[in-house]
């Protein structure tokens, strides 16, 4: 009880960040992190469905063994563009720029991020980069694969490499600025009493993510810049004709792009830590281990890039060290999975939609992580390099991990973000559809890949057809599963039940202010006197929750209308 009394939300006011100001200008020039989060939410969703269209084109082509739907050249562009859109414009910003942007200041009790203007700037940079990239894709596309390997990309490819590269280069700065903002905010803007070890694990994982963003992204920026100059000038430092080394490009590329995988998954882990603890109503098992494992993943993540290059001709000894370190990065990942599982033990678990996504995440991340160990072993990796085994592996992490965590987090915080509840029945149904569709899409790809089906081909031997038909069927189910939330979340913004300040009865700071929050987040600046995940006994929490709810309804009553 002490914890709850310490910061009692005052009577909710009708004014919140959404209705505080009206008009297009109030959104496009906003400095409110919550509004910027919504701007990001809209644009990230747009890019997700854009990338999804390309995914569907891939799956339609692969229904039959012969390349009859797309030409091989078009197919090259389609899978490249699927990768570029999904990685650079959906997965990387998805959780940090939307949920992170919304929640980092709220969870630490700040009024805003440290640099609100830079935050808005990052969204515009993201849009400019995205627009240039989309323009490049529509103007003719790019066919190098999302990895842009030299010298194909610098010399031989006859597609819009430079323009796409410029788009990615620009959007990289939005990621850098987001990371910079988070780090400074977490260091300097915590509310009185919010010590480092009282921070929700969501914050720890975003801190680790931000470290990768600021350390890794500049390297891909300069690499793409050098690549673009080289392509324009027809000479450069990756050019073998003057003694340049194309493998150097791969090193520089993966120095960012492997840690980028952790930019995508670490925020998801943060979301899942919140969901598991809160829907088990139990303090997370081994808080410090989970917190530091995020940092460990960020640090180890920078030391394993060479495992993408086992067949590139890098030194065998380098390969062995990279292999060893890749196994080592599994340790902090496993710490998280074990601690989540231990948190569930004897928890009072409720199977609301966010929890369904969280439980799905644990299972799928486990499969994705374990197959990652297969790929970290040099001998097996040489066997399955550039097969669908690799494709299935990273989709288990990216889609099974990040996308599920993103959807789970979106549902969990939706009442706070929109002030409305989502329809629980539909949401559970959609979670199930996504889970089934996802597994049907990617489980067969493990088998096909292990049997030798190569990636990036638009035609394949007929014996692989059964796996591809299963996969395409699954993809259409998965696609539908992601459309359902799009529909009912938009629907709920207008017709959903009004959310109370704290619909899940949780102790986190973001639940101790009205839903949706006022522009300054908290009417009274909070002082934190409780530990993270300090649940009062269920009875007490219930009392507090209903009392808040009752007060909230009183305040709502005069408005009427729905």
């Amino acid at each position: 009880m002490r914890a709850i009394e310490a910061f009692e939300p005052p009577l909710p006011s009708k004014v919140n960040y959404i209705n505080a100001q009206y008009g297009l200008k109030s959104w496009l020039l906003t400095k409110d992190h919550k509004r910027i989060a919504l701007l990001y939410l809209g644009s990230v969703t747009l890019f997700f469905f854009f990338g999804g269209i390309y995914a569907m084109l891939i799956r339609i082509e692969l229904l039959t063994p012969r390349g009859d739907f797309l030409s091989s050249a078009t197919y090259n562009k389609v899978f490249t563009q699927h990768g570029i859109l999904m990685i650079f414009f959906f997965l990387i910003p998805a959780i940090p720029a939307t949920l992170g942007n919304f929640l980092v200041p709220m969870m630490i009790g700040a009024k805003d991020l440290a640099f609100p203007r830079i935050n808005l700037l990052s969204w515009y940079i993201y849009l400019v980069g995205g627009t240039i990239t989309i323009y490049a894709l529509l103007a003719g596309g790019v066919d190098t694969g999302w990895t842009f390997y030299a010298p194909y990309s610098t010399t031989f490819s006859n597609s819009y490499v430079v323009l796409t590269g410029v788009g990615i280069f620009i959007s990289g700065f939005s990621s850098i600025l987001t990371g910079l903002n988070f780090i400074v905010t977490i260091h300097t803007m915590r509310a009185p009493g919010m010590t480092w070890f009282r921070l929700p694990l969501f914050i720890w994982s975003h801190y680790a993510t931000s470290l990768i963003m600021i350390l890794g992204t500049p390297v891909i920026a300069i690499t793409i810049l050098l690549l673009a100059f080289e392509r324009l000038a027809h000479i450069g430092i990756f050019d073998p004709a003057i003694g340049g080394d194309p493998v150097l490009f791969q090193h520089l590329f993966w120095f960012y792009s492997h840690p980028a995988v952790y930019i995508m998954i670490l925020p998801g882990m943060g979301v899942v830590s919140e969901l598991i603890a809160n829907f088990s109503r139990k303090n997370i098992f081994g808080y410090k281990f989970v917190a530091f494992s995020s940092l460990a993943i960020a640090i180890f993540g920078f030391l394993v890039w060479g495992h993408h290059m086992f067949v590139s001709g890098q030194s065998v000894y380098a390969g062995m060290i990279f292999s060893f370190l890749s196994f080592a990065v599994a340790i902090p990942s496993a710490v998280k999975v074990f601690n989540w599982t231990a948190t569930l033990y004897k928890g009072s678990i409720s199977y609301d939609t966010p929890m369904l996504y969280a439980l799905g995440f644990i299972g799928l991340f486990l499969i994705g992580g374990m197959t990652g160990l297969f790929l970290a072993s040099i001998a097996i990796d040489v066997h399955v390099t550039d097969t669908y085994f690799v494709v299935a592996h990273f989709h288990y992490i990216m889609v099974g991990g990040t996308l599920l965590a993103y959807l789970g987090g979106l549902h969990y915080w939706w009442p706070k973000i929109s002030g409305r509840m989502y329809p629980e029945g539909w949401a559970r149904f959609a979670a199930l559809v996504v889970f089934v569709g996802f597994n049907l899409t990617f489980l067969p790809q493990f088998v096909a890949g292990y049997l030798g089906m190569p990636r990036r081909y638009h035609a394949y031997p007929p014996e692989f057809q059964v796996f591809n038909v299963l996969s395409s069927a699954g993809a259409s189910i998965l696609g539908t599963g992601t459309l359902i939330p799009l529909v009912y979340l938009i629907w709920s913004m207008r017709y959903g039940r009004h959310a109370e300040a704290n619909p899940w009865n949780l102790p986190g700071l973001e639940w101790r202010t009205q839903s949706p929050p006022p522009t300054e987040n908290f009417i009274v600046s909070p002082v934190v006197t409780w530990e993270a995940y300090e649940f009062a006994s269920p009875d007490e929490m219930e009392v507090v929750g209903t009392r808040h709810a009752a007060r909230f309804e009183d305040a709502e009553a005069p408005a009427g209308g729905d």
Partner: protein
Amino acid sequence: MAETAIVEHEVHHPALQHHFENLEQQREAGTLGMWVFLVTEMMFFGGMFMAYTLYRYKYGLAFASASNHLSWKLGAFNTAVLIISSFTMAFAVYNAQIGKQRRLIVSLAITILLGLTFLGVKAVEYHDKYEDHLIPGRLFPGNPFNPSTIHLLPGASAQNTEIFYWLYFAMTGMHALHMVIGVGLLSVILFFSVRGRYGPEYHNPVEVSGLYWHFVDLIWIFLFPLLYLLGRHMEHGG
């Protein structure tokens, strides 16, 4: 100016943004923000330093030969210019902190002038390279359009000198771009200094721009020996 300073002290400083609790927190955030940004800059240049290290190791003699075609005198002059500008910048920050307006303005102006001097010398150097056909591409010595040869140390390959010049232009070009941004930044600071915005209470923008300026200088401190000096002794000794 003295009057406003007193009023500011009483209520709350006009420069305090609404989402910060106080000026101290705002200052901390600004300074940390710049440090974090400089870390990203370090990684940005780091990619090129990595490439330099690799190729220097692979083609040491070619790099030494190519390096001999740079004017170490102009490089050394520019190094001196930047080190002095770092001093005047530090002096500007100090004077902002203790509220000496005149000295702040003068030392900022000198810093900007020194930055422009650096860029001018750099332009002269680039022009020389252009005259000597040392810009990578078809007119580089040994390529089809330019049959002349570049002076080489024994054992060095002419082909690989082109990589050196690629890196030279990429690294110094990127550095010069940062200098241009720095001069722009300091001009804004100078403008607001003239208007008397900074004083003992509030001088974080001066401090933070100073950090940036010192960082750009520091990059040059690494570029100068790596590009101009390493291997120069071999011109005579072999």
